[in-house]
């Protein structure tokens, strides 16, 4: 490839990185945390459901029959039973939907005693939006749309997936010769050489993962905003609902209008033994107490990568078939769609895969930040740069404040959750977490601009984050009475491992910050500039 083309690609790579770098870090970092958002952080955040409770199929069937008799017949069209500690809801939640009027009744039950805790009525969207949230919901939603909602938030995160693709392609061509130096990381050399190697090693090793995340992220962000409306424009004359219906593989049955009791216990008992690795999330019943009723039970984490749906005849409870979410449709697209979600969320192979996804997600976050630090470092030292020293200094402060700040703000959410749980604050949880998260983030940015020494502000932010994380297990003991040792003894794995991970991360941040600041203070005045790249050549 001609050197002039490489120069163009390098410039393009730099521009895309500088314009989108901070936002990409924010999205990638919160994405890495979100991998363990549901159910692990969700269970940790709700002490009343930390102890796992297995719901007996027979008890669940009795519960549904009992409550169905209390509600109008129109609400029996679709019943969705969200199993506890699985995804969105911590307690067993049953949603009765009336399709004709767009209304729903949501009943929440205690996981152990199955006592009714609350009943809410309203439109499905309204009920979902006004549900009680915790830090798991807050972080996952922030990762999805930056809390800007649709279309702006989704458009932004979707476009970031597109720009990440451009960065991957341009980066690949710029550093294609470095592919053979997969293990070259000269960490004993000067700061900018180590940083350059770090950036390239991260880019090369994470190439496939970053490509997958960029593709799936762009799809998930842009699907409802651009892709589905555009696709429905011709094929369905703009009717997006019809397009979505075509991809739905769990169709509602045609009612026989003939009474037959609907079995829930038999399908659930079958699903629980169908695949031990599969985590059941949702039971959907269509046409309750109709002869043609259908029961679908879906879950994730089975031997198949994609989420699986098990189908049953409602009146007999007999198992009919198992399929992926889109697996019954013909063609390649349903296969890609089925893989899209697990490959983005990393929820297909248990905690180990989730851990790998989190670590890889953190490398995706470190890529833009290491690239920006390189650009700043080289720009500050270059005598031919177009920008003034103060511009580089301000950008550096913004990077430290915004990127370090979002890490700090995320860490602060953990103690905030414990305090909110134990004190019953006046504000709704989502507003409270919003104030704490965005307040801490803004404070970090302001501090980064107020403290003249950028090294000092970085250290301050790193130590603040570390101290916050180190406090969490102790605060957990104070507010809930759960300490790490008893959590392990009680087999409350999600809570125990979350506490231990946060504590370990706190220690690691202190250790790494000390190592980096020692290295920076020992840096010789005349740095090794042998690896400055094309941009400054």
């Amino acid at each position, binding site marked *: 490839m001609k050197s002039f*083309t490489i*120069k*163009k*690609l390098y*410039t*393009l790579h*730099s*521009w895309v990185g500088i314009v989108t770098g901070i936002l990409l870090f924010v999205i990638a970092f919160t994405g890495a945390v979100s991998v363990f958002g549901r159910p692990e952080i969700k269970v940790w955040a709700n002490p009343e459901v930390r102890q796992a409770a297995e719901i007996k199929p027979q008890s669940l069937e009795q519960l549904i029959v009992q409550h169905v008799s209390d509600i109008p017949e129109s609400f029996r069209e679709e019943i969705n039973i969200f199993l506890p500690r699985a995804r969105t809801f911590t307690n067993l939640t049953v949603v009765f939907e009336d399709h004709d009027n767009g209304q729903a009744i949501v009943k929440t039950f205690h996981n152990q005693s199955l006592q009714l805790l609350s009943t809410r009525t309203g439109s499905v969207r309204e009920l979902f939006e006004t549900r009680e949230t915790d830090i798991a919901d807050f972080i996952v939603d922030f990762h999805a749309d930056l809390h800007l909602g649709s279309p702006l938030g989704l458009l932004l995160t979707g476009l970031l*997936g*597109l720009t990440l*693709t*451009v960065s991957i*392609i*341009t980066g690949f061509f710029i550093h294609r010769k470095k592919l053979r130096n997969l293990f070259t990381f000269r960490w004993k050399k000067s700061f900018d050489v180590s940083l350059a190697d770090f950036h390239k090693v991260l880019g090369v090793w994470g190439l496939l993962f970053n490509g997958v995340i*960029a*593709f799936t992220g*762009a*799809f998930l962000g*842009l*699907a409802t905003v*651009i*892709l589905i409306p*555009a*696709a429905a*424009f*011709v*094929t369905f*004359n703009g009717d997006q609902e019809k*397009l979505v219906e*075509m*991809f739905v593989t769990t169709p509602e049955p045609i009612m026989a209008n003939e009474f037959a009791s609907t079995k829930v216990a038999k399908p659930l008992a079958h699903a629980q033994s169908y695949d031990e690795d599969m985590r059941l999330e949702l039971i959907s019943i269509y046409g309750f107490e109709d002869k043609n009723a259908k029961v679908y039970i879906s879950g994730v984490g089975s031997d198949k990568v994609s989420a699986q749906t098990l189908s049953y005849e409602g009146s007999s409870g007999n198992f009919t078939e198992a399929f992926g979410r*889109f697996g019954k*449709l*013909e*063609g*390649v*697209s*349903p296969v*890609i*769609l089925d893989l899209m979600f697990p490959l983005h969320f990393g929820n297909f192979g248990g905690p180990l895969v989730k851990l790998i996804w989190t670590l890889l997600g953190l490398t995706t976050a470190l890529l833009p930040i290491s690239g920006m630090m390189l650009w700043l470092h080289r720009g500050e030292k270059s005598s*031919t*740069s*177009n*920008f003034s020293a103060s511009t580089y200094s301000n950008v550096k402060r913004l990077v430290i404040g915004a990127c370090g700040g979002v890490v700090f703000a995320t860490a602060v959410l953990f103690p905030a959750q414990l305090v909110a749980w134990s004190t019953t604050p006046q504000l709704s949880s989502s507003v409270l977490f919003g104030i704490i998260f965005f307040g801490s983030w803004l404070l970090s940015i302001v501090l980064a601009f107020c403290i003249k020494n950028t090294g000092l502000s970085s250290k301050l932010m790193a130590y603040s984050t570390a101290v916050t994380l180190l406090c969490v297990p102790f605060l957990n003991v104070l507010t809930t009475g759960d300490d790490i040792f008893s959590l392990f003894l009680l087999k409350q794995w999600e809570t125990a491992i979350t506490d231990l991970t946060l504590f370990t991360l706190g220690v690691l941040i202190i250790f790494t910050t000390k190592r980096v600041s020692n290295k920076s203070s020992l840096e010789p005045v005349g740095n090794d500039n042998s690896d400055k790249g094309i*941009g400054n050549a």
Partner: protein
Amino acid sequence: MSSRRTTFNHIKMRHFAACLISLVTVTVMIPGMSTYLPLSTPDKIGLPIFLFLFLWAVFFIYSYLAKNVWHPLLVMSLLLVSHLTLSILALQ
């Protein structure tokens, strides 16, 4: 970024082509492609959606790499007009 003046000519036009025209072109291509792809209905809808990301990246990079800024503009305009026409014809 001292290279900015020498590396790319007509930089504003290139930004315009890369950021806006490419996005509009690939969006219009989604319904347009579904009119002529000889595939099953799910694939007719799905594949243009999945190609969206790659086509946008190609057009974006091409907008900057092309020697003459009019080349990517011409290519994208042709694709845009042809796919828009196909979509309108299919609707009629």
